[in-house]
């Protein structure tokens, strides 16, 4: 009998405590909510985050971008990628050809004819950005906001549109370098 009454008392009291807690949340719904109403409000929303500007983040894993003007075609990112979603092809150009310099003042020795990234396969592991000697492959937003602002809305209706082609070398450019190659000996010192 004692157990019976205790059961009733425990049920009623613990339930009232529970109702009290949910009631408290119900009343402070206006200020206590954590919803980000997506299309109207967009991340980053400073008052919801932990008081940080997203510029202060170490990195934000979002879309990959390549500053192709800085790319030397060293293929380090391609080798680092665990899923093989980066494909780089670079062309050896005859000695003495001026391809310009990167922003770190490295002389470019290879013409990047292809730098494709399949974002539909990317696993956002960020491993490709570390080996890059010119820091020309990076993820948008965060500390890179000054280069490319954050962009996480890049869904597409066709999967093939997610293959980003960064190379800007034109066909004439490529031809102008490829045609003389058989006649001249292969240039030295153009190792990746």
């Amino acid at each position: 009998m004692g157990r019976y009454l205790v059961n009733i008392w425990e049920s009623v009291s613990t339930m009232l405590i529970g109702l009290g807690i949910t009631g408290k949340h119900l009343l402070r719904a206006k200020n206590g909510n954590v919803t980000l109403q997506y299309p109207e409000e967009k991340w980053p929303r400073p008052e919801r985050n932990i008081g940080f500007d997203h510029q202060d983040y170490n990195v934000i894993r979002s879309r990959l971008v390549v500053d192709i003007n800085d790319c030397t075609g060293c293929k380090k990112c391609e080798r680092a990628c665990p899923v093989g979603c980066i494909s780089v092809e670079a062309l050896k150009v005859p000695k003495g050809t001026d391809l310009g310099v990167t922003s770190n003042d490295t002389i470019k020795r290879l013409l990047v004819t292809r730098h494709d990234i399949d974002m539909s396969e990317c696993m956002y592991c960020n491993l490709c950005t570390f080996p890059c000697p010119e820091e020309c492959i990076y993820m948008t937003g965060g500390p890179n906001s000054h280069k490319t602002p954050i962009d996480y809305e890049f869904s597409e209706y066709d999967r093939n549109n997610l293959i980003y082609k960064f190379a800007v070398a034109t066909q004439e450019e490529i031809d102008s370098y490829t045609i003389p190659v058989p006649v001249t000996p292969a240039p030295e010192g153009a190792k990746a």
Partner: protein
Amino acid sequence: MNVDVAKKLTEVFPGCLVEQDEFPETHIQLQPDQWSKIASYLKETEELSFDSCMCITGVDFGEEDDLESRYNLHSMKHNHKIEVRISANRKKPIIPTVSHVWQIANWFEREVFDMFGIKFKGHPDLRRMLLPEDWVGYPLRKDYVGPDSYHGIIIPKVKEVWE
């Protein structure tokens, strides 16, 4: 670990040892034929009491070598551990089961069977664990070649639109 497992085992089961480390040993290699009994002995002997089987790993070093099954045993009581290695012929891989000694070995052995095709003699329910029942071949073997299609679904080997 302050018990010489190899020495104790050779006393009780002569000829069971194939290979062993220096004294505080990390691993011992055993003959497969008495393994079931040795496992019970390892679990039930007071000084050893390997009451938990941490892991069973199937190993394949390449097409010339034998398959291997490695047991990482641990004793909650004495807090010591040991690795037992048992190899099996690649053509006819049979190792006695220890699923009656440690219950968890049941699932671990099924997984090894699934991936390497090592048959555990006496296992109560030796079915594939992670792969579908009708899968052909043992994927973690080094000589495994993946199928071209599965139930009519073509498995693409090259990416389209990617050249």
